[in-house]
């Protein structure tokens, strides 16, 4: 028997597989398909202070082995999340959930985080400083070490739960930004968010996406995510949640060898709603194939 348990910042996960933010909503649709408690956990849709409708349509474009999205952080706002979504979630998910937080100012990050920090159901706060799909704020916090550090410091000052900073891949040096956040007390990192990309419709000569650009995710980015997770792993001491293109149990092991303590699965869950369930089902077999008894043994274990 293999052991899939990992410990993510003081919370024991039955397995290292989490649904990625933005690809699981608040869990309701997925819970209609299978028991979500099979998951290690999931990160719910990026939540802001006020409700957001998001960007105009189309918001989705296809790419080779991937997709662009420009949702633009559609969400009902943190008050509604607390009033409606979290109570509903109690009906189908009984583990600590990861709360994904976005903002357009340091104050907004602080406000949303401090509210979610008080919710029993929330295990970790995942602070998204890397959304490429909103004009102001979002990604710009994640592309400057100073701004990233400032968000971290402000959020750490008001929260008791572990703060996981979600990093952008659209930068020259992810490790630099990670270190700046670690210095301000970041408890962990998650990466990667999406890469900025574009597609053009040859018929209309306009971008396919109404927002012009969107974030690339899916298998196409897997080798890039793996590299960045390794870079950050070597730069910081805190745990990493790795993601970007994971679609199989093998991918999970590669990502953990690179340095991830846990992983998130995004785009794959959109194409196959059962992706996480299937990956968790396959993991023990694949672990045995590669002689892994405790999955936590391989975290960062790539020989280089």
């Amino acid at each position: 028997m293999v052991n899939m348990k990992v410990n993510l910042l003081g919370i024991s996960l039955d397995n290292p597989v989490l649904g990625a933010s933005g690809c699981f909503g608040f869990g309701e649709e997925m819970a209609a398909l299978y028991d979500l408690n099979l998951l290690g956990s999931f990160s719910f849709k990026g939540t802001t202070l006020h409700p957001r409708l998001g960007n105009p349509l189309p918001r989705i474009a296809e790419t080779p082995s991937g997709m662009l999205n420009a949702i633009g952080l559609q969400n009902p706002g943190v008050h509604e999340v607390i009033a409606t979504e979290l109570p509903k979630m109690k009906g189908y998910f009984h583990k600590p959930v990861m709360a994904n937080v976005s903002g357009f100012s340091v104050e907004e990050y602080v406000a949303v985080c401090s509210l979610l920090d008080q919710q029993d159901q929330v295990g970790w706060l995942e602070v998204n400083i890397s959304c490429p799909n909103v004009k102001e704020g979002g990604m710009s916090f994640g592309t400057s070490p100073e701004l990233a550090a400032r968000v971290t410091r402000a959020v750490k000052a008001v929260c008791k739960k572990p703060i996981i900073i979600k990093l952008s891949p659209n930068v020259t040096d992810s490790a630099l930004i990670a270190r700046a956040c670690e210095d301000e007390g970041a408890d962990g990192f998650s990466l990667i968010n999406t890469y900025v990309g574009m597609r053009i419709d040859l018929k209309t000569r306009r971008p396919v996406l109404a927002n012009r650009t969107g974030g690339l995710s899916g298998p196409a980015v897997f080798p890039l995510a793996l590299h960045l997770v390794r870079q950050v792993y070597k730069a910081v001491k805190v745990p990493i949640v790795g993601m970007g293109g994971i679609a199989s149990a093998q991918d999970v092991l590669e990502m953990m060898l690179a340095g991830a303590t846990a992983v998130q699965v995004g785009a794959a869950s959109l194409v196959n709603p059962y992706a996480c369930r299937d990956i968790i089902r396959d993991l023990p077999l694949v672990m045995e194939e590669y002689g892994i008894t405790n999955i936590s043994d391989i975290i960062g274990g790539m020989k280089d």
Partner: protein
Amino acid sequence: MKQQQFTIESNAAIAHQVYELRLSGDAGALATPGQFVNVQVGNAYLRRPLSVAKWDDRGMTLIYKVVGSGTDWLAQQPTGARLDILTGLGTGFDLKKARKHPLLVGGGVGLPPLYQLGIELIKMGCQPRLIMGFASERDVFYQKEFEQLMPVTLMTQDGSAGGKGLVTDASLQAQDSFLYACGPIPMLKALHALPLDGQFSLEERMGCGFGACMGCTIQTAKGPRRVCHEGPVFSKEDLLW
């Protein structure tokens, strides 16, 4: 919603670039006409959403137009090939709204979901009629199939078959009808402007097709709604057109 394997029974052209795809397998996840399925195509990352034209105990029928690489791949699949399909997606037409003489209006590959709708309405004792619109004669499909169910008015833009003009050029004579419409946005908007209550089936680019990604959300009178989940069918009063 269910993920299901279907086997191709036939996959043949029935009009210019339009194919009828008969599939055998468990279509039990489908409940109302107007729902759709999301089909994995071999050469692309995302699935392809297609309305269901007809289903029964043995399988279902899709009708699709080749417009890009995914539908092109689909057109090349032989009998016997298996397809991975998410079935039973979305919220279909509300049959309870139908009055005695519902009016069905479909343009091009907007027609398929109206076929099962017609079957169900007739079962309920309604007497539906259909206006079907196409660009040209070569695009026409399912005229006979629909005629076996209900009276049909055929319109083509160039007049090469049926009446000449758009579906809105057909005499509607339908003041007390309830409208069920599916087709291109300009057609839907023109119908929406008529003094006629009804429901409209929309299309949008989709990430997941089952409500998880917010890729397809439109603003409605009731607030943000996902075309794939609360839709693709929306009531007249909800659409902010």
